[in-house]
Structures are given as structure tokens and as C-alpha cells.
């Protein structure tokens, strides 16, 4: 590891952090003097700088592709897929790239591929909420509510303060007929999202 790689990783992780804040906790960006729009612009620049500094590090590539996933069009999705694949070529066990490709597969309704990719990550012992949420979303898309509920219960225990995850947990619990859990997650989502909660109600339908 040289100083370029250290800086490259730092920029990639900062890009990842800014995307995470923009999507899950946009109000917190104010403390960094940003808003979701310019935070994503920063994330894009940071990930490009990361790639320039440490081109063999998959983190910069995955951060760039993850930022592109926030973009509106199919072209961005295609670009993101290519970049995630490049990250996997650099390290075939790079979880963020595998999760990114699973997300894209889900978006394209390729459930088998999405499930295969996310299971790879979970079997490697990833230990984070994100792949569990993704697998729950795949199960939800297939109307496998029991499995979705089980994964969401595990995910919210790992990331109890994440309001969007709680909303997914509300949906899974409701569809699986777990009224108490549904209420518990709904209250937690309201606590976490506060005034923003009503903007996400469409996700529950």
C-alpha cells in the first residue's frame, strides 16, 4: 500500500459515505455544508479522483458505479454495470461490486441472477444490513413474504436506525401478516424519518 492507494481508498469511502447520506439521511448532509444534489456531484468527483490515484483498487470503481445508480436513465445503469464488472475483475470477491450488480439485476427483473449474486455476498460473511435488505427486496418482488420478512428482521437488527430499511420491514411484515412487527417498524420508521416519512409512503404500496 502506498500513499496514493491510501488516498484513493479514502476518496472512494468518502464518495460512498456521501451517497449513503444522500439516499438514507439527506438532512445530515447539512452538517457537511452539502445537500443531496451537490453531495452526489462531490461523490462523482471523489470516485473519479480515487480511480485516477489508485486504478487497481476496486473501491473507486464501485463508488463511481454506485453514484451512477442514483442517475435517472438506462444508460447510467448500463455504465454502472460495466464499471461494477471491472471492479469485480480487479477483485472477484469485492462485495460492493457484487451487491451493485445484484441491484441492477433486480432492477431488470432478473431475479435468479440477483439472488445468486447477493447469496454469494452473504455466504462470504458480509455481516451488513444492505445485502439482507436487497435479498428481501428480491423475495418481495417474487411475493415470497415469509423469506422477505425474515431477512428484513435480521437487517433492521443490524441497522436499527435506518428509516428506509424500516419501511421495507413494514411492508414485509404486513404482507406476511405480522401485525405487531408491522406496527413496531412503522413507529421506528416515523422516529427515524420524522417529517420526511410521508414522502416515502408510496414505497409501502
Amino acid at each position, binding site marked *: 500500500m502506498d500513499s496514493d492507494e491510501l488516498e484513493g481508498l*479514502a476518496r472512494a469511502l468518502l464518495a460512498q*459515505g456521501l451517497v449513503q447520506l444522500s439516499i438514507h439521511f439527506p438532512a445530515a448532509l447539512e452538517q457537511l455544508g452539502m445537500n443531496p444534489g451537490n453531495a452526489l456531484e462531490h461523490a462523482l468527483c471523489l470516485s473519479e479522483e480515487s480511480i485516477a490515484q489508485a486504478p487497481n483498487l476496486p473501491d473507486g470503481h464501485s463508488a463511481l458505479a454506485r453514484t451512477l445508480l442514483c442517475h435517472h436513465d438506462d444508460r447510467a445503469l448500463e455504465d454502472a454495470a460495466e464499471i461494477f464488472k471491472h471492479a469485480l475483475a480487479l477483485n472477484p470477491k469485492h*462485495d460492493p461490486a457484487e451487491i451493485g450488480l445484484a441491484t441492477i439485476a433486480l*432492477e431488470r427483473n432478473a431475479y435468479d441472477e440477483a439472488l445468486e449474486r447477493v447469496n454469494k455476498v*452473504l455466504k462470504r460473511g458480509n455481516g451488513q444490513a444492505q445485502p439482507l435488505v436487497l435479498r428481501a427486496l428480491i423475495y418481495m418482488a417474487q411475493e415470497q413474504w415469509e423469506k422477505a420478512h425474515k431477512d428484513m428482521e435480521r437487517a433492521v437488527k*443490524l441497522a436499527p436506525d435506518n428509516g428506509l430499511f424500516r419501511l421495507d420491514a413494514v411492508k414485509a411484515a404486513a404482507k406476511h401478516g405480522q401485525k405487531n412487527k408491522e406496527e413496531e417498524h412503522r413507529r421506528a420508521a416515523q422516529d427515524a424519518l420524522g417529517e420526511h416519512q410521508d*414522502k416515502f409512503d408510496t414505497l409501502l404500496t
Partner: protein
Amino acid sequence: MSIGWDPKISRVDPTSQSESAEPAKADHTAPKPSESLKAPPLQGKPIDTPEHAKISPEKSDRGPKSDALEKEMGTLKAALRGPKSDRLSAAQTAIALAFSYKLRRNRSARRQGLQLLEQVGSALPEMNEAMQQLKSLLEAEGLLQENSENATLEACQRIIELLSQLELDSAGETF
């Protein structure tokens, strides 16, 4: 290049952009001390395990137990206690290992990597500052992986601070 929002992917309503750019007005009410604090554990009684620490992965979700990694770590730790030439070479390998994604994937792997860096810093005090920088970055990555608001914010702040420090260091080398 302007970045828009795809609610299907980012799961954020586009209308939230302008509003969330405004000062946060979230209705956060701090819990009363009586609700948020528990009495200290009684002597001899087991301490409660935090809720999130009770989750154990499913059997199939456990990472493969790597005897090779254990062995490599053991060898490195021994070499870091050896003569200086061994320590230098072991330090390089240890740093590369701690930096690798394999030791950054999850909490327990990261803990091993951080311990290794601690030992490098003790074995070679001249490398201690660089070890602290790397440790700080790896800890920030751990915070990001918690996926909570405070932890993500703290991670970003730590990385911004580290990047400023690294830029200052490299400017110092230039002039």
C-alpha cells in the same frame, strides 16, 4: 454533469431534494434520561448484550473459516517481534493484508486488521503515524458499514479530516 434521482433505485422521492437542502427541522425529541439510561449491572450478574450484537449469521452466511489466514496472521505477529529486518518485511505484508478487502469485509475481520496495525506501530515506532492514518480510515469504513445517520456522518467527517492531513503531508513533501 447533472445528477437526477431515480426513486426506483435511490428510493428517494425527487421532491425531497429541495426540501432536504433546507435546514433540518426533524422533530427529534431526545429520550429522557430515565428511558435511555439503564442502571449499572449488579456485581456478579451478566451484562445485557446489546440487541444488535445478538444477531448471529445463519450457518450459510458465516464467512469461510480461513486456517491459512490465521496461520499468516500468527507468522506475521511473530515476525513483528523478531529482529528489525524481519520486522520491516513483516510490517509491509501486515499493512497490505490490513488494507486488503478480505480484512475490511466485516467487523471481526477489521478487528484483526486493526490489531495487526497496532502491532506494526509498536514494533516500528517510526511507522506509527502512518499506521494511525490507516487505522483511522479503516475505522471510518467500519462506521459506514453500520448504516446509521450518526455513524455515516462521523465516518465522512473523519475521512475529510484524514484527506486534509494527507494533502498537508504531501504539500510538505513538495516544498
